[in-house]
């Protein structure tokens, strides 16, 4: 007589061979659709075949749920103490902040981003304020017509400016200067160190350039405004205008 055990063994051998051809077991999504009857007849048949080939998975659909708990000594028995411990472990897990890989790195970047944003905001505000200031009327303490150093009055004749308002207005003449496509102005200190340079300037009708210099820009001392002619072959120094800022 053939026993069920013999048939079972034969079946197990058949499964070992057949699973290679069957393919992967159904997914949880497919199982859900299958158990709800949402699959086409062909798909449903495919799942049946897979469930017959993977009886352990079929059992997840059919295994009866226990209505009682295991008694002490039975497999799966959980004592009150064990239950408390496991609840604490789960509770800890639930309360713990989400532990994501690279959380520290993320935190660093968050702080760095916040700092960068704060700095950008501060500088933005300062820039905005500066632009506001520039847009407002300013009082120039005096407007000085500068004379070239060595052509009319000779070196040593300097314009003297006394601080009074917010800025100085320096007027540099172009009269009798050779004609250049553009000109450039530069302010240098007593040691000929450059303090400021203009961009290329086009000659105006009144043959002058006017520089508005904030008072704070020039401390008391001696300075020169240097005029350059800018042509295709380069720059050429044309004149120097000396000036002294009084304390």
């Amino acid at each position, binding site marked *: 007589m*053939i026993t069920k055990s013999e048939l079972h063994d034969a079946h197990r051998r058949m499964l070992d061979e057949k699973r290679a051809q069957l393919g992967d077991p159904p997914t949880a999504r497919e199982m859900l659709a299958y158990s709800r009857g949402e699959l086409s007849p062909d798909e449903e048949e495919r799942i049946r075949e897979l469930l017959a080939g993977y009886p*352990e*998975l079929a059992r997840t659909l059919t295994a009866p749920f226990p209505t009682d708990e295991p008694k002490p000594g039975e497999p*799966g028995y959980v004592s009150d103490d064990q239950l408390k411990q496991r609840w604490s472990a789960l509770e800890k897990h639930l309360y713990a902040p989400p532990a994501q890989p690279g959380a520290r790195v993320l935190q660093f970047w968050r702080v760095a981003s916040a700092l960068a944003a704060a700095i950008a905001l501060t500088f933005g505000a300062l820039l905005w304020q500066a632009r506001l200031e520039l847009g407002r009327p300013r009082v120039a303490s005096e407007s000085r017509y500068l004379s070239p150093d060595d052509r009319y009055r000779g070196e040593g004749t300097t314009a003297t400016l006394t601080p009074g308002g917010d800025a100085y207005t320096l007027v540099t003449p172009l009269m009798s200067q050779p004609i250049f496509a553009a000109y450039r102005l530069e302010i240098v200190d007593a040691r000929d160190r450059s303090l400021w340079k203009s961009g290329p300037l086009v000659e105006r009708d009144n043959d002058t350039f006017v520089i508005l210099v904030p008072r704070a820009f020039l401390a008391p001392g001696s300075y020169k405004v240097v005029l350059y002619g800018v042509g295709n072959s380069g720059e050429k120094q044309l004149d120097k205008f000396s000036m002294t800022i009084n304390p």
Partner: protein
Amino acid sequence: MMTRFGSRNGDRFSELYAKYYRRIIYFYVRAFRLPEEEAEELAQDTFLKFFEAMDEYRGEAEWAFLETIARNVAFNRLRSLHTAKRSAKTINIDDPDFSQYEPAAPPERDYADREQDALHRKLLHDAIAELPPGQRQCMQLWLEDFKYGEIAKALRISMDAVRSRLRDAKRLLRERLGDDNELPEDDE
């Protein structure tokens, strides 16, 4: 996280945990013959998933909801075991190191007996494999100790269909294996 769901849900959750944790463990150990450690891990996973979905769930029967999650957790675990097995490393039998993987040979039996057994197994194997698909599927689950009701549920067919397919399958097996071969009685 608990506060995200409010203390009412948190209290309800701890009540459900205390009430059903043991049954979930029992389910995994008894239905799937899982080791207790693994059952414990799956049970915690089940409650975690339940907790995460608790806020969205508006139904009355929390237990039924928990049961569905427990089944899904088991399904995913068993499925992952099968897919891992399928992608397991294969060894070339020509590999000179193959011998180290070879299991120890069982005690030698008489050659004629072994041949007889192999033939018998092949006969049974082929007899099952050649059954019509519907009958074979029922037979396969029946051989894995599924009850008729469980087969009906797994294959989404009626109990009557299970009965008739199993009866036909056994008749076919009897024919193939010879008249003198009896098959085990039905146990519904």
